């Protein structure tokens, strides 16, 4: 039931946030807090790595959309790394694949 949140700052100007575990209404507040913290530290190019996420529901989507919105207002961006079909599906059904840039690896996300 723990959400893993690991920040990698070695890919400037990108900050990579690797999320591990299940993102639902119980764990999403921690994801939101972490994003707020990063933005407040002036990190405006955030790559959220969802490869370690086993489950993501609409609460998690809401936090990611909120983060994207906040970053865009700073001329930044929030992009995603995700290859797992079960997680991609949630973005597809909700149409959010057209809102987020989704990459197949962190390398690709920071290369663009």
């Amino acid at each position, binding site marked *: 039931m723990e959400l893993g949140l690991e920040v990698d700052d070695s890919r400037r100007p990108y900050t990579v946030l690797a999320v591990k575990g299940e993102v639902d209404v119980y764990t999403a507040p921690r994801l939101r807090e972490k994003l707020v913290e990063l933005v407040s530290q002036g990190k405006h190019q955030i790559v959220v790595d969802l490869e370690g996420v086993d489950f993501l*529901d*609409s609460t998690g989507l809401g936090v990611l*959309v909120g983060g994207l919105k906040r970053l865009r207002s700073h001329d930044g961006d929030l992009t995603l790394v995700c290859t797992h079909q079960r997680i991609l599906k949630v973005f597809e059904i909700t149409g959010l694949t057209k809102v987020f840039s989704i990459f197949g690896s962190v390398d690709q996300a920071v290369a663009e």
Partner: protein
Amino acid sequence: MQRALVLELDVPSSPEYIAIVRLVVASVASARRALADERVDDLKLAVSEACTNAIEANRVVHPDAPVHVEIWEATDRLEVTIEDSGLGFDPDKLEFPPPITDPERLNFERGLGIPLIRTLVDNAAFIRKDTGTCVRMTVFGGPTDGDDTGAIYMDMSSFADLPPL
């Protein structure tokens, strides 16, 4: 096989219990039904959305009321119901998020739960009750071979009762 109640579960209206409800539903669905893993994942997500809403509904008026979960099965289907004691709502009168091409879309961080439920399960019913809301989600798919569990129940007698080898 008639429609039969498989399992009932009451959990507190607190977010940490949603993971347990997901676990239980997924375990029963995989054990009892011939469902692809992907269908089980869909059901898990729909259940998670319904539980999130049920908890939120209870918190407004009856924070101490549990969320009541039932799993029913019939030959061709599995049904999960999630019931709360909240104020109820009209699912046909929900505001839909604007199309994703609209820049306004980003202001909608919510309102994705019910559309997800409707997409993920074969049938979703939002039933208004006197005491709250019951969301019934149905997935079709036959029972697994292990359906008649009575048959494989081990009479607990010892090896000695087996025919001589």
